[in-house]
């Protein structure tokens, strides 16, 4: 990785640089005050805003900054593109695709369908390791929750969860440096959902796949192809994102006994703490593609240029958040953009924060005191999604 170490963050940033993966915060602070829209020629070139207000302005200007490609790294050459509306679409197509998925993720639906399941799942996972006095909280806890919640929602067997994790990591994380793996995992995901949706067309059940198949968008019946793409999106967008935010929350609480003990004493504070942990350790960075030549904050952008939507950096902007680099577990004013802003606000945000809340509540109820076994053993995923991948804790 030595050759990827960037020398000048303003003109040559590298999101996969190990020092950035370890500590992105000092880089953002430097960029915000010296070069708030950075540029790099790496990975086919991109721009990277780090100020909150600039990120909002770009997210709101969907005509200039389109969502036709939202990956932070350019597609693997020669690999087939899989459309994933609404996340990779613009108005007017975006509207209908978003209306299709939103009802499955309304706060009420998520609470009724997912909370009892997630709570039982978290308790069972803890049962499995609590006697050991130690656990890899990333692998044995955080990673286990989102794929099972999604499998439950789609009405597919729980034993698909590990396969889902492998596919999503292959597409989003490990696939950065292994194009074949990325293509293989993407094809496997697509094939799986072609078959699943086909079987639900024949035999509808009480699950979200069947519900989507029965839906209409603006008076038009939904096609099996629409639903296949929606399912792939639910998987890609819903697994390592939430897994990362649960892991980061546990990583923080392991090292901050004051925050941990306060949440144990005042469990009603957990929903507020979830928002603050989402702000401070936002897992997701997206991208936009410039549609026509434009000048943004003095930067000449060409049509086709990629813009890295560094929402995590915006969430640490001291112009917007007091003590931005400090986790204030009961922060009252918190307009964080962990789920983005504007028309592409994460459609699954209610499910994600529910999983986080339940994961933290169940953990603290059973394991109120814990710490990192070895801070140097913690590893982080980088790029589109940042979160712990190895997180040994002892209790």
């Amino acid at each position: 990785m030595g050759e990827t170490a960037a020398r000048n963050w303003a003109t040559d940033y590298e999101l996969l640089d190990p020092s950035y993966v370890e500590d992105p915060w000092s880089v953002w602070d430097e960029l915000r005050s010296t070069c708030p829209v950075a540029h790099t020629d790496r990975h086919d070139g991109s721009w990277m805003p780090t100020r909150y207000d600039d990120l909002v302005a770009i997210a709101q200007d969907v005509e200039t900054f389109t969502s036709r490609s939202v990956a932070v790294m350019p597609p693997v050459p020669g690999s087939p593109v899989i459309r994933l509306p609404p996340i990779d679409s613009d108005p007017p197509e975006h509207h209908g695709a978003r209306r299709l998925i939103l009802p499955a993720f309304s706060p009420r639906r998520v609470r009724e369908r997912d909370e009892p399941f997630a709570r039982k799942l978290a308790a069972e996972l803890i049962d499995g390791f609590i006697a050991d006095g130690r656990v890899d909280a990333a692998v044995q806890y955080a990673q286990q929750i989102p794929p099972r919640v999604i499998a439950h929602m789609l009405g597919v067997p729980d034993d698909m969860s590990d396969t889902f994790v492998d596919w999503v990591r292959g597409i989003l994380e490990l696939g950065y440096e292994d194009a074949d793996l990325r293509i293989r995992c993407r094809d496997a995901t697509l094939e799986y959902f072609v078959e699943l949706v086909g079987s639900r067309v024949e035999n509808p059940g009480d699950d979200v796949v069947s519900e989507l198949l029965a839906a209409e968008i603006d008076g038009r019946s939904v096609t099996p192809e629409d639903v296949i793409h929606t399912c792939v999106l639910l998987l890609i967008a819903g697994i390592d994102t939430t897994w990362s935010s649960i892991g980061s929350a546990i990583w923080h609480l392991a090292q901050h006994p004051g925050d941990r003990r306060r949440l144990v004493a005042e469990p009603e504070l957990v929903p507020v703490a979830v928002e603050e942990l989402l702000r401070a350790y936002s897992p997701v960075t997206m991208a936009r593609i410039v549609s026509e030549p434009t000048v943004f904050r003095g930067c000449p952008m060409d049509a086709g240029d990629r813009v890295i939507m560094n929402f995590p950096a915006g969430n640490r902007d001291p112009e917007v958040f007091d003590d931005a680099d400090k986790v204030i577990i009961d922060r009252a004013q918190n307009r964080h953009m962990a789920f983005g802003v504007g028309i592409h606000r994460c459609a699954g945000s209610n499910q994600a924060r529910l999983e986080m809340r339940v994961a933290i509540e169940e953990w603290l109820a059973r394991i109120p005191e814990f710490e990192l076994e070895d801070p140097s053993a913690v590893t982080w995923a980088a790029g589109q999604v940042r979160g712990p991948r190895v997180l040994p804790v002892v209790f």
Partner: protein
Amino acid sequence: MQIRVDPDKCQGHNRCYMLAPELFDVDDYGYASHIGDGDVPGELEDKARLTRDNCPEHAITVVD
């Protein structure tokens, strides 16, 4: 005190509904609106200001 949600700005983050379900409801798509005529009882005024200060889209207006 009165609250209003600007439907053109609301993107369905549901932060207001999570903080103050006494004041806001959301439709099947997650978009928010005020309950009733938008009057805020005295004991909920702090909560109303809190929802305004947590809306990422600046969609909530509080009028004293």
